[in-house]
């Protein structure tokens, strides 16, 4: 396939809303994307070949029916649920104390700076490519969680260039974001390279990023 044909496939894959300038930006970021566009189009076409069937006309009423069915609580279940709740509360208190201790007394290992690259779309909106990075030589896995991903930890990859550093680059819109790193799935630590570190009111310290 010629480079021009590959680019045509890429236009089709990305959609008509992409301007030529945005396609060039995408190719600067991902130079191999044009060559892969044809295969990706085929993958999605195969998925879309299965027509989505219509929902039954009474779908909303079925949802209401399930709501009403789940409204009546079982009294016996309620009475039995006290001790598990007590155990759960105790575990929660214990967990919070342990988490507070770990967050407070285990200082984060200083790491690389936060780097931000800016790009401007055809609609003049700025996109910020933020590289979140932290040095954690003893960690098996590191993730980042914050306002930008609904606090669902996003895995960082071990850097091939810097020993013990984990990093990920995410495109974000302008704004202020709170976030934190999650080390080995349980230890939440703020980013030492962040603009600011603030208390979140629940005993945890979050980093703040202003874009």
């Amino acid at each position, binding site marked *: 396939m010629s480079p021009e044909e590959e680019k045509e496939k890429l236009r089709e894959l990305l959609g008509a809303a992409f301007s030529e300038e945005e396609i060039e930006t*995408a190719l600067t970021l991902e130079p191999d*994307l044009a060559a892969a566009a044809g295969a990706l189009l085929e993958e999605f076409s195969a998925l879309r070949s299965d027509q989505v069937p219509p929902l039954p006309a009474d*779908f909303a009423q079925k949802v209401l029916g399930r709501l009403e069915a*789940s409204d009546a609580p079982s009294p016996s279940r309620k009475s039995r649920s006290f001790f598990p709740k007590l155990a759960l509360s105790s575990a929660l208190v214990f967990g919070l104390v342990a988490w507070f201790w770990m967050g407070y007394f285990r200082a984060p290992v200083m790491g690389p700076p936060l780097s931000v690259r800016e*790009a401007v779309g055809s609609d003049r909106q700025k996109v910020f490519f933020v590289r979140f990075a932290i040095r954690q030589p003893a960690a098996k896995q590191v993730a980042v969680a914050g306002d930008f*991903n609904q606090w669902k930890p996003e895995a960082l990859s071990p850097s091939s260039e810097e020993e013990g550093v984990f990093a990920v680059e*995410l495109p974000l819109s302008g704004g202020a974001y709170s976030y934190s790193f999650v080390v080995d799935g349980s230890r939440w630590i703020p980013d030492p390279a962040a603009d600011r570190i603030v208390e979140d009111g629940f005993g945890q310290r979050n980093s703040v990023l202003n874009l």
Partner: protein
Amino acid sequence: MDRPKSPSLDPDLEALRRCRQGDRQAFAELVERHQNGVFRLIHRWVGQKERAEELAQDVFLKAFRDLSNFREESKFSTWIYQITLNRCRDYWRSQRRGSEKSFVHEAIHSQPSEDPSPETEAVSLGEAGRLRQALDELPGIYRDALSLRYFGDRNYEEMSEISGEGVSNLKMRVARGLAQLRKKLEELK
């Protein structure tokens, strides 16, 4: 030029307020307004009508039960699609763990394999399964953008409405997500 709509004129928020006052028919209105988009997205992830319908019902039930947590700082559509994307992801992962058997899997295998490896699962569920698996393994920021665009058939303006992110940002997420998806698909071949 259209003037921006006042939040009080947003039909979803109007229905939500009536819903909070105990009007369940208002919730039915919300369901009817979003059910097709939610179902389409789930069906592309699940590939089976009955299961997709059940999961779509789960999404709306969860939304109803968590109404008190919705603070109207974002659109209802943003919230309902986030619940939908989470449910799709949870379902897909439970499939891979084998704890929630799909009808497709049961139809193919009379005895479901124990803890199938990702590779085995991809082969047993065919090409569409491989694509879903590759998508699931992407960072969430890319997975959600690609899900809305290619599974939910949303244009960038609609994606922006749903996610609250800027159009340019979403375009770059789609482009970078596609590049990562290609690498994942190569790994799964």
